[in-house]
């Protein structure tokens, strides 16, 4: 074959490819490497069948890397993504900043009224829905029914923190690598601070008073932290200061935890096929202290379109598919009801098939008992249950989380950690101009 001929052929092939590409829109979707999102990537044939002219490029990253990349990109208007996976913390801030495209014009069959009110409320700013929930979660107690029984205890549906301590003590047997309770200890605003902030609500603590004065020097935070440290030091697993959601999940699945208080989505994993204790897990509401607030949070991984996207229509078509009722039915038909992304739609919880899933009711009750607009015992100037919806929170809470994680590792005391947290918070809030 001569060179010219080869070049000609190449050029023809290229043209053919180019015309093929013209007809289709490629959207880039940034997402976390959580199980529900990975599952969605396996079900894309359904989307392509319904939208033959759209092609989806996945960017799947670990949560922290994802958040940091997505934030850098949207804040600098880099325009790298067409669909973002973000949480209830980002949506109010970014929506207010005008960085997201409103989703109020999703088609009627999307049935926006069907979304759970608590979740929908968290994703709406000034009447505009800025993100569609892919799955929603609260937190709850997951415990080993067999171990509780062996210890002669029963778990109440709505336990108190004292109940939790009793149960933890009874189930701990360190010689058998069996630890009464597993909780998050890894530093990060979305790791240990999500848990501790939600927990502190039930102890009557708050991050700031009405004048944005940090409250870590108060009695309520001291009670929260000492109770947490006491639980973890006596009944927790080794290395807890490095344990986040994933580490605890794997411990629980191996049968090494008596209880685990964490996200409701974990329920489908601990009862799933990778779990060695799948048939022995019970569920209860997150504990309280009789002060009127439970220690559970509210979060929704949601899909949003950044304002810079050139392909808003295709992006919306994708979001419409991924968060629709049909998608839930699709997952149910392929993988069973237990694996459906939970916590977004009322209709799912009305479904009789879904009601048979052991954790369905507890998930719904937990989500409904969280109130982001009124999260604490005493009044606060912010919204958010396990976070404070201000831009400065991520950095501040991560630094505070470092202190609390150090206290758990034993390299500092509870008092010193709280004093350091107070100082960090005062500095940061002064710097940001909240404290005049």
């Amino acid at each position: 074959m001569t060179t010219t001929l080869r070049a000609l052929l190449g050029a023809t092939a290229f043209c053919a490819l180019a015309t093929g590409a013209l007809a289709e829109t490629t959207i880039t979707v940034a997402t976390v490497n959580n199980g529900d999102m990975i599952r969605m990537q396996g079900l894309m044939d359904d989307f392509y069948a319904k939208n033959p002219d759209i092609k989806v490029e996945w960017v799947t990253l670990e949560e922290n890397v994802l958040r940091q990349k997505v934030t850098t990109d949207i804040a600098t208007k880099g325009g790298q993504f067409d669909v973002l996976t973000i949480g209830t913390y980002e949506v109010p801030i970014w929506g207010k900043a005008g960085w997201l495209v409103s989703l109020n014009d999703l088609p009627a069959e999307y049935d926006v009224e069907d979304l759970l009110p608590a979740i929908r409320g968290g994703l709406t700013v000034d009447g505009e829905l800025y993100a569609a929930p892919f799955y929603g979660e609260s937190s709850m107690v997951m415990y080993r029914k067999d171990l509780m029984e062996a210890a002669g205890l029963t778990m109440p549906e709505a336990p108190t923190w004292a109940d939790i301590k009793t149960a933890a003590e009874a189930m701990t047997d360190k010689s058998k690598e069996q630890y009464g309770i597993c909780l998050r200890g890894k530093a990060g605003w979305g790791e240990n601070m999500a848990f501790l902030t939600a927990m502190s609500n039930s102890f009557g603590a708050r991050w700031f008073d009405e004048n944005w004065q940090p409250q870590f020097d108060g009695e309520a935070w001291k009670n929260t932290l000492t109770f947490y440290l006491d639980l973890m030091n006596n009944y927790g697993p080794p290395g807890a200061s490095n344990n986040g959601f994933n580490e605890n999940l794997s411990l629980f699945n191996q049968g090494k935890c008596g209880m685990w208080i964490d996200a409701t989505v974990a329920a489908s994993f601990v009862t799933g096929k990778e779990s060695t204790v799948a048939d022995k897990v019970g569920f209860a509401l997150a504990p309280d202290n009789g002060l009127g607030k439970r220690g559970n949070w509210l979060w929704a991984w949601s899909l949003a379109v950044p304002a810079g996207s050139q392909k808003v229509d295709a992006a919306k078509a994708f979001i419409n598919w991924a968060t629709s009722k049909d998608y839930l039915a699709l997952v149910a038909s392929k993988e069973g009801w237990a694996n459906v992304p939970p916590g977004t739609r009322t209709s799912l919880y009305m479904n009789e098939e879904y009601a048979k899933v052991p954790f369905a009711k507890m998930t719904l009750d937990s989500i409904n008992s969280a109130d982001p607009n009124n999260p604490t015992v005493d009044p606060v100037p912010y919204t958010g249950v396990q976070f404070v919806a201000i831009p400065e929170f991520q950095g501040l809470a991560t630094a505070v989380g470092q202190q609390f994680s150090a206290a758990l590792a034993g390299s500092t005391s509870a008092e010193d950690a709280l004093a350091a947290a107070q100082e960090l918070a005062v500095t940061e809030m002064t710097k940001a101009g909240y404290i005049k």
Partner: protein
Amino acid sequence: MATAQSRTAARLMVSPAVILLFLWMIVPLGMTIYFSFLRYNLLNPGMETFAGFDNYYYFLTNAAFWDALGNTLTLVLGVLAITVIGGVLLALLLDQPFRGQGIVRVMVIAPFFVMPTVSALVWKNMFMNPVNGMFAHIAKFFGLQPFDFLAHAPLASIILIVAWQWLPFATLILLTALQSLDREQQEAAEMDGAGALSRFWYLTVPHLTRSITVVVLIQTIFLLSVFAEILVTTNGGPGTASTNIPYLVYAQSLLAFDVGGGSAGGIVAVILANIVAFFLMRMIGKNLEA
């Protein structure tokens, strides 16, 4: 020998590299200096105001800064000590005749090719994890309580991981140097009755000095900016126990999205790096000139 013409040519040839590096240094640096004087949170766009030296003040008075400075030095010196001493010993061992030299050398050099992220992930999960890691399994086998490396000895664990990655590099350079050692001189000294230790001290060590200097220089450049290993394993914690300067700058600029503060931190880091560079260069310059 050099004519005026060849001098000009030389200038011309060296200039692309210099100009590029100068731009590479000065443009981002200039922007960073500019940002460091602004109150600029990435999440609060349009709110940038002039902040004077506030960002520097907050960065330098942050308790974490001094911890980070200490940790940076410990990390660099710790890894240097392990790799240089370990490298010399290993090079001496591999310089001896033994069977299977090729295979052993391949095994020893391997860690140098592994991505820092991967090696940190592997060490963290498969080895140092206190429940499922190899070390925990070994401890349990002997009936001991597993030691939680990343919580109770975070900096030492990171030093270990980083040293593992750089040991092959040091070993290779030192081994090459050893192989160029004058055998006859060695043998003459041996005939004169010099013991193995004094031969090592008076012949081998002086011969290795230049290579050691090179190892120290190159590694310091990379060790000052160790980042991925910390991000993957400890996130700088617990507390600030394993936060070094690059990680602190990262926390400021990409966790808190405080571009102003992060930029101030970046400038401080550049100044510190230059101080280190200055001393290092004087030391190296002296050694390499000879």
